């Protein structure tokens, strides 16, 4: 099916008009909002964001100070925010059909496969990528999912493009790991205990330390290099602090185990899920580790049985860097939408801009891409979301999405 036909079909399927992907790119764009949440200072009343030909933000400020130059296409909205950043997802790998042929987030042949690259599995045309984009998400940290001791690598993309190359922001971002009983379900009951899972991960890192030592000792002498090993090469990059370990750990026990691993091997750690993180706030804070919290509305069952809707707020109040994720879903809905998840954090007591930061600037900082996305500032990517009211209200619509100066969605949803 041609791209155009496909778009028309999708538009018909979801019943939100024919504008999906149909809007032409415009070289120079001005966005004028009654309120502009730049996430780099106080919100601007009657603000303007100018995006240049290069897709970068040229200027941001009140309309009284920022004149819209002639020739710029102007879009208006009640509320303007940076394009949303989903701090952890599996879209593009875990397809919406949920059939074996479109599930690439988890390889079940071996519970330890850090060498698996996300770029080799990302489907830029996957319907769920377009779906979350329609709700303002412009940047996604996606890749291999939870459910293996080491499931593979993650990557960062923009929610556009027809190929991985057109979407890519960062091809290797982190290595995804999981602690706790959820792993055994995918690997015939093994590892059978939490402790065994930790032991297997430690053994692998110890191998990687030895490998890294051999590589270092060889120096420039190729004859002394150990045979190439994709698995250990990847873990060596984790040991070198080049790639953070993204460890999914829901129960307090699992979170403490993740912190122990980090202390033993000295890698950079990002905690993921962390349903019971509110029980071990002091330990997380002391370790200086950021947390990408489970979707607020994730099913509070299994290892998430003690999850709360207040976790983001509690961690943030303790000074721990936090972001929200859409996460992984094995069934319906096949993905969550971080806009709705952040709204729930706001509903449960987080101040508006802090809740918005969970899915913009704070997410960008944890992912190490805050020089490009997460706030509306001069020189950053022209990624913008336009709303016809309070972004978190159920009855508000996302009425425009811009990625690097290209209007990718203009239908109100």
């Amino acid at each position, binding site marked *: 099916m041609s791209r155009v036909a496909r778009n028309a079909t999708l538009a018909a399927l*979801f019943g939100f008009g024919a504008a999906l992907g149909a809007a032409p790119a415009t070289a120079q764009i001005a966005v004028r909002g009654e309120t502009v949440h730049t996430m780099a200072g106080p919100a601007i009343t009657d603000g303007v964001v100018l995006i240049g030909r290069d897709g970068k933000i040229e200027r941001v400020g009140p309309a009284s100070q920022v004149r819209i130059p002639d020739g710029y296409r102007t879009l208006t909205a009640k509320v303007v925010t940076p394009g949303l950043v989903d701090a952890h997802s599996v879209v593009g790998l875990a397809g*919406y059909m949920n059939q074996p042929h479109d599930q690439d987030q988890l390889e079940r042949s071996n519970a330890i496969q850090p060498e698996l690259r996300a770029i080799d599995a990302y489907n830029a045309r996957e*319907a769920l990528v377009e779906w979350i984009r329609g709700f303002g998400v412009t940047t996604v940290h996606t890749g291999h999912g939870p459910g293996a001791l080491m499931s593979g690598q993650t990557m960062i993309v923009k929610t556009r493009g027809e190929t991985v190359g057109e979407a890519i922001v960062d091809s290797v971002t982190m290595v995804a790991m999981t602690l706790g009983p959820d792993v055994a379900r995918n690997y015939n009951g093994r590892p059978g205990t939490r402790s065994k899972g930790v032991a297997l991960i430690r053994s692998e890192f110890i191998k990687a330390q030895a490998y890294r030592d051999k590589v270092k000792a060889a120096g420039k002498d190729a004859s002394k290099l150990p045979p190439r090993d994709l698995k250990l090469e990847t873990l060596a990059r984790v040991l070198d602090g080049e790639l953070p370990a993204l460890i999914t750990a829901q129960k307090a026990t699992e979170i403490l185990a993740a912190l122990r691993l980090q202390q033993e091997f000295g890698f950079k750690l990002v905690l993921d899920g962390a349903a019971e993180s*509110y029980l071990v706030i002091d330990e997380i804070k002391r370790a200086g580790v950021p947390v990408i919290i489970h979707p607020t509305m994730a099913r509070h069952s*299994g290892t998430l*049985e003690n999850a709360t809707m207040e976790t983001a707020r509690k961690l943030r109040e303790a000074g721990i860097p936090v972001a929200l994720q859409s996460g992984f879903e094995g069934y319906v809905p096949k993905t969550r939408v971080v806009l709705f998840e952040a*709204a729930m954090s706001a509903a449960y007591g987080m101040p508006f801009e802090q809740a918005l930061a969970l899915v913009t600037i704070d997410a960008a900082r944890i992912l190490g891409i805050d020089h490009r996305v997460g706030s509306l500032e001069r020189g950053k990517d022209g990624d913008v979301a336009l709303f016809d009211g309070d972004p978190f*209200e*159920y*009855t508000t619509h996302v009425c425009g999405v811009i990625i690097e100066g290209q209007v990718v969605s203009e239908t109100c949803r």
Partner: protein
Amino acid sequence: MKRAFCATLLLALAAAPPLAGQERVQVFRGAKIIPITSAPIDGGVLVVQGGKIVAVGREGAVRIPNGAEVHDMTGKVIMPGLVDTHSHIGGGDGGDRSSPIHGDVRILDAIDVRDDGIQKAQAGGITTVNVMPGSGHLMSGQTAYLKLRDGRTIYDLLYCRDVLKEVCGGLKMANGTNSRGEPPFPGTRAKAAALVRERFIKAQEYRAKVKAANGDPSKMPARDLEMETLVEVLEGKRIVHHHTHRYDDILTAIRLQQEFGYRAVLHHVSEAWKIADEIAASGLPASIITLDAPGGKLETMDLSMTNGAALEKAGVLVGYHTDDGITDSRFFLRSAGIAVRAGMSRDAALYAMTMAGARMLGLDDRIGSLEPGKDADFIVLSGDPLSVYTHVEQTWVEGVKVFDLSNPQDYIYAVGGIGVRGVVSANYHEGMEGHE
């Protein structure tokens, strides 16, 4: 008038389970009251006694009896308790894998009323729920209509008084992919329909024999639990709740209903927007699930948030449900907000959460709106029901407060945390695939 009132009260008392309604008159004043079947009242007064609503009206227009316990609800919003037409709370199950058809199986035999799902549903403002067995069968069993009173046993929550003599719920049916499998399960859609038709034709024959016996025990057919249930369906005493997603499966569900003439509600209806007019022409109501994304299974790939708007426009009676397990009862009110986002009218969305559900369960003479004589089931909200920032602060069932956000234990049920865990919740996730 007074006599009529007393008679009503006596009846209510006679029918009330041990935990129901307080005798003292209770008055809730100052709130914006949304009765659903009439226009919202700013600064309204709600008078409750004996578990029933005595009066609803404007301040000054409703007599406040001497000695009444007065609750100041200034700044709050009061609306009827929510009706969830399709849920799996209580950890119960229905038929097993021995057959695709289990008309004889009752979920009420398996519901644990101490499951935290019940408390969470109260926290979500749900006061009546249709607890269903899963969708892994063509008929997975008899559903149970529950009033979410605080209770010790299933009997404290059931609508019916005598499980042997009364109809205590509906009949869960399902088509599409969930009920398919290796024999004896159907391998195709057509086979699924044929199996259901055969069973109902048997039930017609059984019913004819019962009629022909005309009360003579010697002429009665041998008792058959499944046939007895299906006869209740054929006679309109038991409502079919039909799980169906794809547009052609919805049409099949309608075709079966038309052939056998039973009362039915279409559930989930992911592709309803494709055939809204056909659903309207069938006269069947539809109960919708709200999901944040399409997909997750093949038959929900075309799910649209516009289903509510499309069905409202076509003139269909629209309700919503949690399918709890699939979506959380505590977020049920979200359905109305998302429905309005996608084009449904505000009034229809609030009606869908309450009165429509009551009608779908055949309980609209007792619940679904705030009217004198109806059960005093209502919720106290901190603000507009469609706002994300609004919380359910209190849930009242038959004049008894069953949830109070200011109570620390109730707060945990509402928000989550240590202490919320129920007996079955930890295992529920794994068994979920058979449901939605």
